[in-house]
């Protein structure tokens, strides 16, 4: 608490409050609107923020329940939204787990071990990760197309190929974990070495248990990154049942077949769990991001 307070503090607080509320209205507008749209009747309905005659048709649609309209027609669900959600979660969880394994071991080596080319490797990794995956799509497509001819479960239109293609994007995670490892006192591991532990044991039984917070941050960050990834998935996956959410949800909004209401319901249904995970992990994420940010 500052010791010196200006006299007109109360007015300033109220001014700030009004500005904040106005700003929040602007920022929250899309979210409120999409909730409203998901309860409106029909796909082209416009109207006030609170729907005039609310309907659950869009929600039935995305949950895969056939919906009966007022005039007796039964509308079948258009897209397997829940399958997409499951695909997304499956791919994201596997990828995040693998990324965590790869980046913790890598970060350990960069933070603690001494080997040739260490700094050069780090620099080139930082530069290489700037090559956008979108531009590597031709290569990804060709690679998995050919690999699929030999190992079918790693071919195009498989989730394992998608997971593999995400494993290149680990540099930022290595960087984050490395920064955290460096903040832990080396003395702990050194005492283990004196007792005859190998580097692996020092890593597994000392460093890892101490780094759980940053590991959680990296897991959540990569989970969010993968679940929202869209270009690679759109090229590697083709079958409707194989799509991830990020690719599938777009199909609601084709110009010829504009299902605005269904999209709204699907967006809330699928955005909600991801948003909740993020908000729950928020405190750790903020610390992780700033620590990583400061270190570059």
């Amino acid at each position, binding site marked *: 608490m500052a010791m010196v307070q200006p006299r007109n503090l109360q007015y*300033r607080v109220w001014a700030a409050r009004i500005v904040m509320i106005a700003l929040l209205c602007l920022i929250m507008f899309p979210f409120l609107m999409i909730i409203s749209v998901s309860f409106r009747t029909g796909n082209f309905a416009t109207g006030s923020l609170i729907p005039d005659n609310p309907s659950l048709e869009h929600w039935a649609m995305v949950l895969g329940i056939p919906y009966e309209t007022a005039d007796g027609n039964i509308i079948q669900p258009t897209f397997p939204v829940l399958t997409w959600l499951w695909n997304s979660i499956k791919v994201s969880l596997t990828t995040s787990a693998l990324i965590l394994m790869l980046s913790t071991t890598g970060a350990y080596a960069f933070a603690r071990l001494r080997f040739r080319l260490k700094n050069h490797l780090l620099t080139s990794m*930082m530069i290489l990760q700037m090559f956008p995956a979108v531009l590597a799509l031709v290569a990804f497509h060709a690679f998995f197309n050919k690999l699929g001819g030999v190992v079918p479960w790693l071919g195009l239109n498989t989730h394992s190929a998608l997971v593999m293609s995400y494993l*290149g994007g680990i540099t930022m995670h290595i960087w984050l974990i490395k920064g955290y490892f460096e903040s*832990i006192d080396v003395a702990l591991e050194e005492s283990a070495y004196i007792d005859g532990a190998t580097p692996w044991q020092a890593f597994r039984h000392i460093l890892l248990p101490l780094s759980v917070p940053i590991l959680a941050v990296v897991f959540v960050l990569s989970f969010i990154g993968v679940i929202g990834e869209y270009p690679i998935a759109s090229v590697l996956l083709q079958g409707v049942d194989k799509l991830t959410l990020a690719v599938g949800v777009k199909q609601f909004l084709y110009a010829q077949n504009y299902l605005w209401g269904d999209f709204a319901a699907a967006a809330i249904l699928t955005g909600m769990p991801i948003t909740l995970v993020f908000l729950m992990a928020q405190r750790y994420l903020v610390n992780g*991001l700033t620590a990583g940010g400061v270190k570059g």
Partner: protein
Amino acid sequence: MALPANAESMATRDDYANKTVEKIMTISANVRTLLSGNGPKWALVALIDLALLYVVFLLYAQGEMLFPLTLLVLGSVGTWVFTSKGGYCYRYVYPCLLGIIMFIVFPLVYTFSISFTNYGSANILSLERVKEIHLDKQVKTGDQVYRLALYQDNDQYQLQLTDKNDSENIYTSEAFTLDGQAKEVTAQPDTSAQGQRLSMRDIVKQRTALGEITVNLNGNTRLVMSSLREFAAMAPQYREEADNVLVDIHTGESIRPDMVTGFYVNVDGEQIAPGFSVYVGGENYQLLLEDKGIREPFFKIFVWTLVFSALSVTLCGIIGLLLANLMQWEPLKERGIYRVLLILPYAVPAFISILIFKGLFNQNFGEINMILEGLFGIEPEWMTNPTFARMMILIVNTWLGYPYMMIVCMGLLKAILDDLYEASAIDGANPIHNLLFITLPSLAKPMAPILIASFAFNFNNFVLIDLLTAGGPMRPGTSIEAGFTDLLVNFTFRTAFVAGQDFGLASAIATMIFLIVGFISWVNLRATRSSQEY
């Protein structure tokens, strides 16, 4: 630059430390027993190597060179790292490097090599494959023509073929089903077919399925349907001669591969599809620099990409910084709630919020235009007018990007000593003085690398543009499609996958983008280093 560590996590860390020290005691007893027993490791390495060799061999058998070679090199390096003592330190680095090499370096090299070829939808195959396609081509020889009769017995069919020149010469096929699948049936000299002979009308119905049937006469001549009434003998059209030249068996005319255009050409120089990919040298780069229809949109898109990235970083940075200041201001008691709500745009997956904005900005029934119409009587053409489209993109990107800047600024603001603000308050400074003379100078150094990284991210912000406008509205008068809101990545993506499918040209653009962005991040690294050295 060090941040005050979070008090809670410090406490838990100390707890962990105490527990771990206890653990170490018990571990050290077990260390020696764990060290022995390398047998399973060797078995595992051998097993992985065998599987890898198998895949490499199969890929090589398919006529690939680059893929199996990469796998072979990575596999042998991996074997060395995990079996030799000298490679011990690399055991920790190898797995993550493997991911980076396979899915960043390899695609990069592959893209770079494609940029010197004419690989694209018209020239997608290899020369060997195109030659095979030509050699597989069958033409009707005309010397053996048979009239057909089709017999049906439930779902079993039989073909009876009568030689057109010799009506005594009759063959009957074995029974088969007509399910539209390509299949080969054998026929013997015989006249006894089972079931009922079908009329012409029924044969017409089965025409497509019959077209898939190849009849093998006595195991030497192969017939396919040549008209509704006839089956005729087929023979390959070409035979191969030296240097991949193909000669038409029936006309004697020869076609040869043209290694410049990537097509087989006949004597008159006509191209025969499909094409194959050939090395074209720097032609794609030359196109980018010299063809007016490509160079002009490329340059304009490059400029817009720079403007977009710079504006995005500036807007997000300013808003993020101001909000972060407000969030640290203690008299504002309820700021915890504001903070969670302000982070929300960052928490919702971008692909969802961008699509929500796409609907809200819809010109005809989007809510934003309805509100603007009601309040000010205007209806901006967000999707068709280039200026409005660009404004929309900046609005949406600012909405998406300011929370990250806010989070980072909040962390950095904590590190500024309160005494500075105390002192300035005593001297009678107002908040604007504080911002300009205390906050900004202290943030400038640590923020620089973050701003540059964010610039590089926006430079390649493919998803935003692709989901919101897909690059539109389109620029008129360009030889490849280019839009007013296209970023370089979107332009490349469209060139490669949507319009024209010119992978060679797209790869050339991709290579240039990588050089630009690589340079930016190199500068960023230098900046980071210098900010840490004081």
